[in-house]
C-alpha cells in the first residue's frame, strides 16, 4: 500500500470512529468522560476478539490514535505478559504497555502547570 492510500484509509477510519462518539454524545447525552471510558474498554474488547491487529494493518493510526488504540494496547500488553510470565502477567501487562502514554500525559500536565496560567474562557 502506498503512503497516500494509507493516509486516506487512516483519515476515513479515524473520522468514522470520532463521528460514532459524536453521535453518542449528541443523541444519548453520554458525557465525554463516559465516552473515553467506553472507548478504552471497547479497545480491549476489539483486541480480545482478535479484530484489532488486522484492522491496524489496514487502517494504521486511524484505529491506534483514537482511545480504542489505548485500550487495545493495554490488552496487547496483558497478552504478552501472560505469555511470558503466566498468571502474574494479568496484573503487570496493562500498565507496562500503556506506561509511555500515561506517564507522558501526567508529566506534561505537571510541566504545563509550572509553565502556563489558565486564561478565562471566551465565547
Amino acid at each position, binding site marked *: 500500500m502506498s503512503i497516500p492510500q494509507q493516509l486516506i484509509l487512516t483519515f476515513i477510519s479515524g473520522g468514522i470512529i470520532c463521528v460514532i462518539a459524536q453521535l453518542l454524545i449528541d443523541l444519548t447525552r453520554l458525557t465525554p468522560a463516559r465516552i473515553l471510558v467506553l472507548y478504552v474498554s471497547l479497545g480491549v474488547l476489539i483486541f480480545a476478539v482478535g479484530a484489532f491487529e488486522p484492522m491496524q494493518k489496514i487502517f494504521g493510526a486511524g484505529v491506534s490514535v483514537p482511545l480504542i488504540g489505548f485500550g487495545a494496547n493495554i490488552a496487547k500488553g496483558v497478552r504478552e505478559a501472560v505469555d511470558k510470565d503466566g498468571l502474574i502477567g494479568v496484573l503487570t501487562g496493562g500498565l507496562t504497555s500503556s506506561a509511555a502514554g500515561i506517564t507522558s500525559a501526567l508529566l506534561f500536565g505537571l510541566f504545563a502547570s509550572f509553565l502556563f496560567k*489558565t486564561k478565562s474562557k471566551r465565547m
Partner: protein
Amino acid sequence: MKNRITKLKTPIHFRSWASVGGYEERRGPLGDKFDFCDTSDKFGQKTWEIAEAEMGRIALNTSLSKVGLSHTDLELLVAGDLQNQCVASSTGLSSFGIPFLGVYGACSTCTESIMMLSSFIDSSDNMKIGAALTTSHNSAAERQFRTPVEYGGQRAPTAQWTSTAAGAFLLERGRGDVMITEYMPGRIIDGSTADGTNMGGAMAFSAFDSITAYFEESGEDIHNIDYIVTGDLGKVGSDILKELLSKELPGAERLHTDCGLLLYDMKNQDAHSGASGCGTSASVLACHFLPMLADGKLRRILFLSTGALMSPSSLLQGENIYGIAPLIRLESGKEN
C-alpha cells in the same frame, strides 16, 4: 397560599448602585453602561476565586464613591455569590468591618439579598442604610460546577454562559428616585429535569409560580406594570415562561424580559441560550433597569432573579434541579 407579599411600611429607596463586569460583558450590548469592566477577567488577582471577591469589592466601593459615602456609613451588608460556602463575598468584604449576612440563592441571590436588606431596614427602628452585593465569575463557576477552564469541550445549545459580573446596591430609608415597595419570597419548585445544561428550562416554572402568585394575591392589573423582568432564564426558559404566561395571564407574556437575554449579543456572541449566574440579574438591574426607573422612563417593574438550586454532587447523583424566583417590586420615585 396567602400573605406571600410583604408591602414595606417605610419608604426605602436605592441610594446608589454600581455594576462591574469582565471581557464578554464589555463586548455585550450593555458594555458601555457598566461602571467598570476588566477585560482580563482577573481583576489583578492570582486566582479566579479571589478575582470574583475583588470584583465585588470594586462594585461596592464604586457604589459608595458615586454618592460620596464611605463604607463606615453602612450599617449592614447582605451579599452572596456562587462559590462554595459563599466565600467570594466574605473574602471580598472582609476588610469592611461591617455587620455581614452571607446569602445563597443560586442565581436568585440578587433579589434575595435586596429583599432581605430592605426587610431589615423596614423592621428596624433606626437602621438607615445598608448594601446588597451579588457576584458571579465565569471561570470560578466553571471550575467548581463544570470542567477546568482550559478543558476542550462542546456546550449544549441549551447551555448558558455564567457571567463575570457584579452588582452592588445601597438601600436607604426614605424616598428617592427608585423605590422598593414590595417583596415576595419564592417557593422551591421542581424543575423536573436533572440536565445541568438546561437550567433555564428548569427555572422557568419557578418564575411562572411567583408571577402568577403575585398577580393573584395583589389583584394588580398587568397594565400597571411596565416590565416583568426575570433573572437568567435565557432563551429556553423565557420561551417556556412566555407560553405558560400567555395561557394563564394573557398579556403578561408581552411584558416579560430576561436579563440573561440582555447581557450578551445573542447574534454575535456565542452565548448559546443566554447569560446565567447571579451576577447577571445584579449587573443588568444596576446598569440597565435602575437608571431607567430613576429617569422615570419606567414606572413600575416586577423583578425576579431566578435561581437553579443544585450542586455538582446533586447533579452527579441524578437529582432534579429545583428553581426559585423571589420577586421584588420596584417603582420610579419620579411620578410621585
